């Protein structure tokens, strides 16, 4: 039993790593689920049970964290950064950023400067907090509008 759990966790972690690695690409849940050798539905359900949020939300936080980094460390345009971290539209990026960080990308940039610490430390330390209840219901990678509050 324990061995099964461990093997299963390891597969889910491999899929999560794929999101961390390829966040800038147009990932969909099917592709990520395939890394874990699971169906989309089974993968989303298991991922949430194991890591506490849906794969969709995990990927959003990953992308937003990278956008926060680029907003702080570079002078590239918000639009450039939006596409660079894997969002398909500026509207979705701005809405998701505001929902997760609590302010707009431009406001965040205005109030935060470059930080001097190893990247892996800041990837962990500045990643926005985990899922809200509304976001956890979201289980697809689509860009459709989701209700903002329960």
């Amino acid at each position, binding site marked *: 039993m*324990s061995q099964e759990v*461990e093997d299963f966790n390891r597969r889910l*972690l*491999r899929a999560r*790593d794929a999101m961390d690695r390829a966040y800038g690409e147009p990932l969909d849940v099917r592709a990520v689920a395939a890394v874990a050798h699971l169906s989309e539905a089974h993968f989303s359900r298991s991922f949430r049970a194991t890591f506490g949020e849906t794969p969709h939300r995990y990927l959003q936080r990953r992308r937003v964290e990278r956008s926060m980094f680029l907003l702080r460390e570079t002078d590239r345009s918000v639009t450039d950064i939006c596409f660079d971290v894997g969002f398909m539209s500026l509207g979705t990026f701005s809405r998701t950023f505001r929902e997760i960080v609590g302010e707009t990308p431009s406001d965040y940039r205005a109030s935060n400067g470059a930080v001097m610490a*190893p*990247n892996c430390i800041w990837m962990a330390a500045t990643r926005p907090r985990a899922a809200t209840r509304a976001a956890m219901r979201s289980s697809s990678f689509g860009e459709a509008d989701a209700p903002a509050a329960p």
Partner: protein
Amino acid sequence: MITKLNVASIYVLDKDEALDFYVNKLGLEKGQDVRQGSYRWLTVRVPGNGTEISLEQPGSPLHDDATAAQIRELITKGAMSGLVFNTDDIRGLYETLQARGVTDFTQEPIEHFYGTDMGLRDPFGNAIRILQQGKVAQKVTA
């Protein structure tokens, strides 16, 4: 005053599999391998560097079964701490690791202001980062 970090430890699911990965894949060397009854004191280390990395397997005599199972689950969820190594040729090492069959990269080599680093996982889920400090010469591609 303290003069050296002598031993750091990392939890693994299987000592033999860990030894194979850390020595034959990652390129470390075996340090201590001493058996005392059912306990095996097993370490690896960076060649030429004194700090031993102890490969610890959760379970008896250190943990009861339930505790060991919890630790094993955390390892496989990637929730435990990891190791950071330095290299003098990050891109060469990246290719070498791939040639040796390492596939679990969490990040290909990326440049930062402090150097170029990459990330991977050991077979169990532990995070490993490898850094080449300073400016790294770009490989010329045809």
